[in-house]
């Protein structure tokens, strides 16, 4: 049996409405995507949705109190809240450079936690 799901693509601001055909728990085809990046997104969305997490870690001795971070690749949507909470429990020392790996394998599935802004030390 095949069934169809409509998902709104969040990969880019176009926000395409993509129809995914699922057969036996497998996403077999997609339609309605205006670019090819919509296909893997829509297929994952009906099977096991993923998102890039952006969050904050605390910064010690920096020009700002917080340093924005992101995961190096998308993580499971169901883990977002727990991972954001985990990020907030981390304190790193200033200075940081944008792109620094702050935690490797942050989610247990190979996504690293990267600094997303360069922030100097205070003073």
């Amino acid at each position, binding site marked *: 049996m095949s069934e169809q799901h409509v998902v709104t693509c969040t990969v880019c601001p176009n926000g395409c409405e993509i129809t995914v055909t699922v057969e036996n728990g497998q996403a077999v085809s997609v339609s309605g995507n205006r670019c090819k990046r919509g296909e893997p997104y829509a297929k994952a969305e009906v099977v096991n949705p993923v998102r890039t997490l*952006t*969050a904050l870690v605390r910064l010690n001795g920096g020009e700002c109190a917080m340093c*924005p971070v992101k995961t190096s690749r998308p993580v499971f949507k169901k883990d977002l*809240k727990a991972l954001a*909470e985990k990020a907030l429990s981390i304190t790193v020392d200033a200075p940081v450079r944008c792109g620094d790996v702050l935690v490797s394998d942050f989610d247990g599935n190979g996504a690293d936690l990267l600094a997303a802004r360069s922030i100097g030390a205070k003073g």
Partner: protein
Amino acid sequence: MTDKPVVIVGGGPAGLIAATAAAEQGANVILVDREKHAGGILNQCIHTGFGLAFYKEELTGPEFAERAAASALVKGVKFMNETSVLSVSGKTVSVINEHGVSDIDAGAVVLCTGCRERPRGALHIPGTRPAGVYTAGLAQKLVNIAGFLPGKRIVILGSGDIGLIMARRLTLEGAEVLAVVEVMPAPGGLRRNIVQCLDDFGIPLYLSHTVTDIRGKNRVEGVTIAKVDEKFNPVEGTSFDLDCDTLLLSVGLIPENEIAETAGAEIDPASNGMLVDENLMTTVDGVFGCGNALHVHNLVDDLAVEAAQAGKNAALYAAGHVFAPCTIPVVNDGAFGNVVPARVSGTQPAVIRFRVRRPQKGAAVSVGTFSKRFAHLQPNTMESVTVPADAFTDKKEAVLCLNNTL
């Protein structure tokens, strides 16, 4: 002639990109910014979704800002940080910083002063005046830069993109977002933000609803929400209370043009944006404007294209280039909320940017002999058309028309 600098006012994305574009033309460029670090509001927009068109890569706000600032530096832009512009008179830019007040004699000026959030005072919400009512952008700064959570139980009024983004941010940082309340029948923010910021976390969105009362003495204790009719009046018998400690307002952005006013630039009373011609020059000779100070953009990538045009033209002007006179007014047929530019020359292709007032399916936007069909047009999305010079057949006015083609 060419020795006088192009002065860029504002170090957000519009300012950084305008400065880079001006420097690429060989101009001597000074960027004046009141903040210590360039990037403007991007530094507090820690979510992704920036740069897909401009840098061909999905970036967070701070990453976009860092790249834009690095490009400006490489091209030789001189930064005057922690410096406020007091006024612009002719092409003299008066600034103040820790060294005192000084004047810069500019060859051209680009105003990139961004926008401000509409505050509670503009909304006429009845109730008490407790602590705990914030604009969404202020809450964003508190959370993402300062590391404070503004509250634990939060209601958001308005479904603009910043409000939606903050619903997700606050949820991820440990607060509970009880509801997003939108007076219009459709969300103000992008569809993708409804999905990834509200639906992902099960946050309810109440369309055609508004906040009719704010309760609490020292701190917000709760709000009353009611359904509204087509005239946006609350419908009796539909109200309900939510106990919360914080109300965020995401109810619109207004171009910030105090400096443009000191220069004597004409402001559009409807949008509060500067009136510019097809070269993005204001009504003051040699003073240009771009970015959210002109009209509020959805995407920094679109804003970047506009800012680059303004920066390039400012450099050309400073080098002595004379633009064709823009004598043809661009007239809105009434279907559009906002149209930029206000005047064109009819001698070169002109980019016309607009928003429709009401959602449209299968509509054509036309000017003179030019027409372009759009499958969808949404009031929450800015669109543009590039109109060739020979389409401006009427030299008295260029009417931007919306025609339903279904």
